[in-house]
Structure formats: C-alpha cells, structure tokens
C-alpha cells in the first residue's frame, strides 16, 4: 500500500535525535509491552508479513505520533481479535468474558531462549529458476497494490543493476495476505543515487534494495 510507512526520500520530519548510550527501553511500560508482544508472536499464529501489513494499516497520524511499542500493541490486539482469540468486549474491559480457554498453548519461560536462538528462517530449499542474474539491468515495477509491498515507492520505475542473488525466499507481499509463500529469488539491486534522486542526489552514493523477482522487470 502507498502508506505513511513508505518513508524513503520524504522531507520534513526534522533532525535525527541520536542517543549514545540509551538503554534498550525508555518508558517504564515499554519492556512489558515488548515482552507481551513477543510472547504473543511466539505462538506463530500469523506471519511477520501479516504483522507488518497490520502496522502499515494503522491510521497515518497514529503511525507518526504514537510510540513504537504502543503501535506494536495495537497491532497485536487487532490480530488477536482477527484470529478470534479476544473479543471487542474483552478488549475494552480487560477481562475474559467467559471461562472458556482458546485452543493455544502459551509459550513457557523455558522455551523463550531456544525459540529466539532458532528464529524463523524464510529461505526455501526449492528449485525456482531466477529471472535475473548478477549484472542484469532491472527496473522496479510500477505497482501500486493496496496490500503489503516490499518495493519502496522511491524505486518504482527506477533502473538498477542486480548486485547479488540471495537465493529463494518467501515472497512477503503474497505471504502477508495468506496467498502462500510464493518462493522466488531475492536480490540485492544497486540503484545509483542520481537515478533515484536526480539533481538532489548525494554525490557518489548508491542505494542497495532487497527485491524479489516479482518486483522487477528487465531494463
């Protein structure tokens, strides 16, 4: 979707506020919110891609003004509701509406480190031929899907060169919408700054973007 999350190249957000030695969390509620979100995500009920699409779909003003962990909590609540694990009434009251327990097994404390250490790889050992090879000139397709898209707006219609072929990966744009993994080749594509930004380009710079076969066409 052409959402507020797709920020590459936008102006007007002001200076960056570096923080040298800040802790992992800031507000007191942040660690709890993070841990809660991780505990829910560890159930594996929905993909990272679905999670991202849900965050991208937050109202743009909220996306810009609400804290990161607040946004993640809102995403978590929406997806729990979509999966029928909590009702709107429960969400409002903070209390279970009945004694019936959903059919999920909560992640235990002992399972946390093994889960984190294992992660969730999204490369796939399937034989899918690549549409491009390293050195090919490619163009970002001019797509404006209302779904989850990993091709940033600033690269659509722009020409770059395939720098690396990372192999076959789950295609996030399809996976976010339950359309299957559609495994395909993922590349790093180098775009010269002048191609992306014209006269405003930082001299002698380039942007490398990870793009899948379905994002690209020959140029």
């Amino acid at each position: 979707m052409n959402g507020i999350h797709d920020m590459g190249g936008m102006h007007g957000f002001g200076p960056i506020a570096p923080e040298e030695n800040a802790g992992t969390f800031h507000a007191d509620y942040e660690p709890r919110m993070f841990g809660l979100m991780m505990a829910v995500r560890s159930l594996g009920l929905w993909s990272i891609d679905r999670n991202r699409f849900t965050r991208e779909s937050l109202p743009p003003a909220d996306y810009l003004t609400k804290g990161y962990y607040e946004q993640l909590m809102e995403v978590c609540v929406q997806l729990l509701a979509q999966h029928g694990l909590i009702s709107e009434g429960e969400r409002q009251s903070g209390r279970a509406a009945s004694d019936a327990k959903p059919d999920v097994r909560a992640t235990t404390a002992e399972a946390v480190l093994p889960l984190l250490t294992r992660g969730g790889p999204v490369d796939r050992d399937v034989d899918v031929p690549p549409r491009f090879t390293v050195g090919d000139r490619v163009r970002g397709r001019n797509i404006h899907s209302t779904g989850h898209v990993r091709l940033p707006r600033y690269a659509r219609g722009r020409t770059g060169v395939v720098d690396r072929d990372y192999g076959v990966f789950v295609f996030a744009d399809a996976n976010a919408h339950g359309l299957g993994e559609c495994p395909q080749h993922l590349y790093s594509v180098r775009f010269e700054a002048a191609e992306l930004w014209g006269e405003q380009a930082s001299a002698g710079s380039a942007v490398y973007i990870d793009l899948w076969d379905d994002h690209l066409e020959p140029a």
Partner: protein
Amino acid sequence: MDEHSHNHADGQAAPSDPALRVKALESLLVDKGIVDPAAIDAFIEAYEHRIGPRNGARVVARAWVDPDFKRWLMDDATAAIASLGYTGRQGEHMVAVENAAGVHNMVVCTLCSCYPWTVLGLPPVWYKSAPYRSRAVIDPRGVLAEFGVELPDATEIRVWDSTSEMRYLVIPERPAGSEEMSEEDLADLVSRDAMIGTALATLPAAKEPAP
C-alpha cells in the same frame, strides 16, 4: 477499525494511558491462557541482558584479527556469525558489508525498522524514527553529518535498505594505531552506531568526552 478508546456497551472504556493498557491486555491474555507472564519476563531479560551490540562488536573484532574468519564472514555471514553463538530471531539471514578506503556503508529500513537483533539487540529510537528512515536514502551525507561523521567527497556511500529479511551488519574500518590491541580490547572500539554505519570505529583518545 477504530482503535481509539470509546465507551463500550457495558460502560467500560479501554484506558488511554499505554501503561494501563498494557497491564489490562496482559491480565486478559494471562487470564485466557494465551501468554505466561514468566515468558514475558524471559523475553525482556533476553534483550536487556543477553542480546545486544556487544555481540556484533565481537564479530567485528574477530574479523579484524582473523583473516580466515573475515573471508568467511564476507562470504557467508550467517554461518560465520553463528560460529560465535549468535543465531536466531531477526538475524536468520545475515550479510556483512565492509567499510574500506573510499567506501562507507550505512543501513536503514525505510519501510519498517528491520535491524539485526542477534548482533545489535533492539534498535535505538532514532533508527525507527521518520527522520532517519526518510532521509538515509536521499541524503546520506547530511544524515552522517548529523551524527558527526564527515567523509571525504570521493568516498562512495552505500546505503542498504533492509526491505527483506536479510539483515545487514557494517564492518567498520579498524582504526589506525590499534595494531597491538587484543581482540577483546578491539571489541570495545566498536560502537552500535559504527555497525549501523552512522559512526566510525575510533580509538578511545579520539572519542568525544562522555556527556
């Protein structure tokens, strides 16, 4: 979907204070058997105490002292980093990009806040913020200047936009004058920002005094 607080039919309103909301949500999910509060504690503990930029600094220091490891890291970062014990979530697919004379690398996620958790921990606020995400790709020199990094005009800046599940780790240049230092001491020279590409690795004497 309305995610603002509003009065529900039963007269209950979800609290608007995030601290109260997270408390209410936790108690609901514990009540329903969806989460175990001890697991929440364990997730927090992992990222507050176990997983952070010290991991990445050890990877960089090893690459500086061990040319075989460095070659492995550039060729298959996921495996090389796993050999030091750093694997898993938000680091399943690693790529190391190396700074050298005339080349500087910098990492951003313009669409989200993707970041190599296994080696750097959770991202700083600025990395997730609109100012950095919007400008890193269009004005990398201006962004670097805000971090106090001035590079020669001839230096090529390569910005890596982490749009997939590949996670990028910048290997900064080893500072001149560090030739006699041990691997352990070298790791102290490698800041989180140097591994994102918004700082350089420097000897302590050249560092700004602590605020």
